[in-house]
């Protein structure tokens, strides 16, 4: 390539602290301030003062004596330099149990869930999972098994070294080569008296990854290095003991040593874990599309969303599909915002509207419709698990009414959260109180609150430090303690439960047996005696909260774009970064700036050119399903399909049976008059073979995974041979009956059903195929006219174009 190399050495100027300090260096090639290659292996290294700082041919610097040196890396004609200062090279040095030994055990996998980190340990030897309890681990290693695990006089005779190096039989196989750096580190630590963790230990403060981002090409290789910063201000190279994972192995795979190999185009996040911290590096691999920059400047931009989507597409050289047509847009918008099909009249009116801003007007009118309230009340009821499975029927209704009214009133999302999380009183009078009735156990309450309002799971941290996040077990129990003063008791009426916030009571940390100060994860602890839940909500809904606005924005975004910026939509965590971080940040900021107005957020998303793109892929964006270069087609939710069947056939669904109690069984119900739509049901316990087959969530646990959008053979058999659709088609009051009376001919019937179900006219080819098959049927003496129409409806209503939004 003609571009001149622009070399820099990572991590840049550093200080090596202590007699054993070393640092692996990278020589990185830059273009336009971005890392575009790793040329370390081609580099020759030299030190200006080798007696102070020595550098080996692979690019590792080691402190020899206090002082400073300049390191030079030479690649062909190009050079780069960095300054290294060595200090405390004469100081006493012992490997530290907490900061060195435990990370080594973690890297080797000794304390993983499959080995000694299992709840019951392995082979009578139990360590804390990934070292979350160093004090316990030290006791186990130095005191248990008659002290045979370490032998200070003859370190090589310590079980801790003999078993993993296979000097003695080891169920886990070879984990530690004799005389490897890890082996020596453990041996040195044993020789130094196997000191345990102490209060005076420095603690790790942050992780730094180099390079934090890079733009690479397929087959490129890149080494990642990791530095840990400690509370005394010094930093160490911990690359060797960090654990690595890639979010997209097919784009950029990474091995145990931190070596990245690029596979294909796209973007991958490399997550790096060390001690209980995680950090990420991003690897972008642009597609090989020859792209003209004008494609992006000419692509429509309706608001800030489009700037950020196009910025990402341009960086990855993915072409955006053009905007969709008006017919696609109106069907898409109705289904995504309100779960209904537009009527043929509405479609025609929209097509005939000549105003330039007609899409924005359509969006505004949709957001005022009662079906919008149905749809979003249903969606938030999924999120809040409203059902008569665990709630009495009146309580279920009260909770649903609260949600429905909140949507109807455009209640701001922060107020909605506050009303729920600080609810008190009778669950029948204040429906929101049922949140605490559903989540009676404090662990369930804590974890469900995190998923519901922060879109993040902290469940792992209940028992040990979270392996994929920075959350510690202490932080979990601190957060749990915010909910320790919630009390519920039976009320006077049947099904009534009252929720109170007491002024005392703590939950104990299960391992340490003491209460942890009530604090929301990494927030400050509550100090006064007021309702701790209010303290939590203040933290949660503060504009600077890292989760609250993003979680809501991501959920709403996913509803419209088919894929969350973070996917799954409730899996926000550092090691699962958004596909477009700037965009999620901007959406969240805009949401906060507009007072947590969900309708504003919805309107912003629906008005973006990104939402209004065609679903037809271009040659260059076929492979992209996460940067919003086209509208992602997706199957409609179960309830939407069922309601659409009712509206197209004009035969409503009857909901007359409900599952009762935990012992099983069903009962009749007259609560839902004929004409009630599936999306208007407050409860998921209504019996419906169709809704179950198509993946209605049970509302049993807070998880977006409850709703299933996969297709199954059971669904297909049900549509073919089952009653739901066939009965609607055969009903004597159906639309088909009207058309028979009207003597609608084949061509007209075809035109009408396409308009009703697909919002478009049949193509010439479709028309000739349909009319041919229908004419053939008409000649068959066994086939009635009604059957021909039924079959026509069936064919259109079971095809992917109908069942999908596109």
């Amino acid at each position, binding site marked *: 390539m003609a571009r001149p190399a622009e070399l820099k050495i990572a991590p840049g100027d550093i200080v090596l602290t202590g007699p054993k300090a070393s640092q692996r260096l990278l020589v990185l090639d830059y273009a336009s301030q971005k890392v575009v290659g790793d040329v370390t292996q081609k580099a020759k290294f030299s030190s200006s003062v080798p007696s102070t700082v020595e550098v080996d041919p692979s690019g590792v610097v080691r402190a020899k004596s206090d002082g400073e040196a300049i390191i030079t890396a030479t690649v062909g004609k190009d050079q780069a330099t960095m300054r290294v200062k060595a200090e405390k090279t004469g100081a006493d040095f012992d490997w530290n149990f907490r900061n060195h030994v435990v990370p080594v055990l973690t890297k080797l996998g000794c304390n993983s869930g*499959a080995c000694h980190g*299992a709840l019951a340990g392995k082979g009578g030897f139990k360590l804390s999972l990934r070292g979350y309890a160093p004090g316990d681990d030290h006791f186990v290693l130095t005191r248990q098994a008659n002290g045979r695990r370490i032998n200070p006089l003859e370190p090589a005779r310590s079980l801790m070294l003999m078993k993993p190096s296979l000097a003695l039989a080891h*169920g*886990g196989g070879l984990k530690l080569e004799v005389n490897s750096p890890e082996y020596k580190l453990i041996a040195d630590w044993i020789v130094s008296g196997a000191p345990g963790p102490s209060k005076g230990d420095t603690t790790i403060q942050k992780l730094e990854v180099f390079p934090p981002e890079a733009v690479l090409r397929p087959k490129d290789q890149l080494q990642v290095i990791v530095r840990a910063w400690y509370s005394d201000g010094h930093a160490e190279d911990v690359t060797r003991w960090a654990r690595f994972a890639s979010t997209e192995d097919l784009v950029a795979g990474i091995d145990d040593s931190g070596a990245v190999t690029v596979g294909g185009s796209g973007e991958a996040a490399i997550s790096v874990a060390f001690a209980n911290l995680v950090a990420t590096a991003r690897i972008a691999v642009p597609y090989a599309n020859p792209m003209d920059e004008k494609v992006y400047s000419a692509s429509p931009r309706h608001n800030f969303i489009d700037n950020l989507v196009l910025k990402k597409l341009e960086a990855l050289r993915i072409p955006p599909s053009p905007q969709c047509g008006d017919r696609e847009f109106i069907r898409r918008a109705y289904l995504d915002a309100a779960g209904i099909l537009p009527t043929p009249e509405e479609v025609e009116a929209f097509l005939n509207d000549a105003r330039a801003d007609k899409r924005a007007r359509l969006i505004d009118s949709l957001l005022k419709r009662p079906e919008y309230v149905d749809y979003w009340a249903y969606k938030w009821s999924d999120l809040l698990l409203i059902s008569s499975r665990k709630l009495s029927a009146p309580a279920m209704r009260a909770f649903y009414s609260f949600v429905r009214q909140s949507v109807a009133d455009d209640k701001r999302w922060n107020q909605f959260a506050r009303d729920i999380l600080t609810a008190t009183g009778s669950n029948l009078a204040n429906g929101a109180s049922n949140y605490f009735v559903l989540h009676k156990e404090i662990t369930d309450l804590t974890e469900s609150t995190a998923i519901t309002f922060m879109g993040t*799971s902290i469940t*792992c941290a209940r028992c040990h430090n979270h392996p994929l996040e920075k959350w510690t077990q202490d932080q979990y129990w601190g957060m749990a303690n915010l909910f320790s003063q919630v009390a519920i008791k039976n009320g006077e009426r049947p099904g009534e439960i009252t929720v109170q916030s007491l002024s005392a009571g703590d939950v104990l940390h299960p391992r340490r047996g003491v209460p942890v100060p009530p604090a929301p994860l990494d927030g400050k602890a509550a100090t006064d005696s007021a309702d701790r839940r209010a303290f939590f909500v203040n933290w949660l809904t503060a504009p600077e909260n890292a989760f609250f606005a993003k979680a809501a924005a991501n959920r709403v975004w996913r509803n419209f774009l088919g894929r969350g910026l973070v996917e*799954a939509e409730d*899996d926000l965590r550092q090691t699962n970064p958004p596909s477009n971080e700037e965009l999620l940040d901007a959406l969240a900021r805009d949401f906060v700036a507009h007072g947590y107005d969900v309708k504003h957020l919805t309107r912003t998303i629906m008005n973006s050119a990104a939402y209004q793109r065609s*679903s*037809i*892929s271009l040659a260059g964006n*076929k492979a992209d399903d996460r940067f919003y270069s086209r509208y992602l*087609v*997706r*199957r409609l939710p179960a309830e939407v399909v069922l309601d659409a069947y009712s509206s197209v056939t004009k035969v409503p669904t009857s909901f007359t049976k409900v599952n009762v109690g*935990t*012992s*099983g069984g069903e009962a009749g119900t007259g609560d839902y008059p004929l004409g009630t739509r599936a999306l208007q049901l407050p409860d998921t316990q209504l019996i419906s073979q169709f809704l179950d087959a198509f993946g209605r969530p049970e509302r049993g646990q807070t*998880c977006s*995974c409850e709703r*299933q*959008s*996969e*297709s*199954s*053979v*059971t*669904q*297909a*058999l049900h*549509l*073919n*041979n*089952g009653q739901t659709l066939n009965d609607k088609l*055969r009903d004597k009051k159906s639309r088909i009956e009207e058309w028979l009376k009207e003597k609608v001919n084949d061509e007209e019937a075809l035109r009408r059903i396409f308009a009703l179900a*697909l919002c*478009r006219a*049949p*193509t010439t*080819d*479709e028309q000739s*195929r*349909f009319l041919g*098959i229908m004419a053939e049927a008409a000649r*068959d003496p*066994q*086939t009635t006219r009604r*059957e021909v129409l039924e*079959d026509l409806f*069936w*064919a*259109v209503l*079971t*095809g*992917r*174009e*109908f*069942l*999908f939004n*596109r």
Partner: protein
Amino acid sequence: MLRLDANRSVRFCDGLTRRDFLHAGAISTLGLTLPGFFAEKAAGQTGDRDVNCIMLFLVGGPSHIDTWDPKPDAPAEVRGPFRPLATNVPGMQISNIFPRMARHADKYSLIRTVYHTATAVHDTGHQMMQTGRLFTGGIEHPHVGCVLGYVRGQRGEVPAHVLLPRPIGRTGGNLPHGHTAGYLGRQHDPFILNADPAVPNFQVPDLLPPSYISSVRADRRQRLRDAVDGAMASFENSQQARQLDGSFHLAYRLMSSPQAREAFALDRDPARTRDRYGRTRFGQSCLLARRLIERGVRFVTVNMFETVFDEVTWDIHGSRPFTDIAQMSREVVPNFDQAFTALIEDLSDRGLLQNTIVTAMGEFGRTPKINPAGGRDHHPGAWTILMGGGPIRGGRVVGETDELGYRPKSRPVTTAEVAATLFHGLGLDTHRELPGPQNRPIPLVDFGVQPIRELF
């Protein structure tokens, strides 16, 4: 020859239109009968020597002491009303309420020391026995049969894993029971019968078109459905759309495949065969399981009961809504004795037992000491399961419980080891990793869990 509208006339030999469903099952034109086709397969001529499995799930949890781990020397309040009976395997004794099983003990082995330490509710045991794991952290693990289907795919026109007759319903714990594909995704769920094969006009719900949809009509519907393709370009790169089309395709194959329809046509077995299994829901489910295995299904799960409430089951607490010991021995035991024996005999006669594992298991044992209501309560400390067929040897007894049947005295067997034994017997590498939630790799069984070697 067969016809789709088979509920009226099953055999059919007139001139059929080109469009009839018969074409979907091309093997019939080769002049082979279906069992013949599979016998050839079993003999290795088609290179498919995979092992199948029938899992009989004894919902409720049989009392080990009253069934397959008798304690004749224990005090009366433990020993219970039954006596041990010698079997055709020297030294192997079972309770005398299983006279038929006693004559076939060479075809199955007893594992007497299965135990678990989770909460003693039905649901946890269902999870652990069907998946090998207790569900924690919101992760639902896949049923052994779903894993097999995921790894091997379906064979011919029939589903890989069929669940008869219905999934386990509520059993008190309100937890998932482990009959699904869990994190593997709904497309790997078992095909669920949802009907009682013992009723007179038994049919698979939705498998056959209703009477008003003739084969001509069904065919017309498919052709009309295929004609909607004006927006095809939108779906070209959609995995979901391919899955939808795939499901419709499979459903159509299933409903129009003579092989599949034949497999479910219980009335094709002569009346004496049907009688041999017993004309009960469980008996006819076992017969249906044999038919399905014979026609290519890889794994069949048969739930003996759907719930433990208001039904005579293995859940012998002694008082209503549960069952007492006498009721169990009068109704449940003969039902099982007859169906189980008929199944292993029939499979053996047809040469299918050599490549079909048959296992019968409950979710826990029952308390050795009889309670004041004359029943026994939940006891996950030790219980007995049955396993035979395929590579599993018969006539063995694994493990021994203590004198009163409280705990394993030797060779305790975890539920994970039971799953490992099934995986191993089915020819799957137990270290194989499955794509778990968030693509976390999850091995079939945890590191270090071994199959029960004594059974191979």
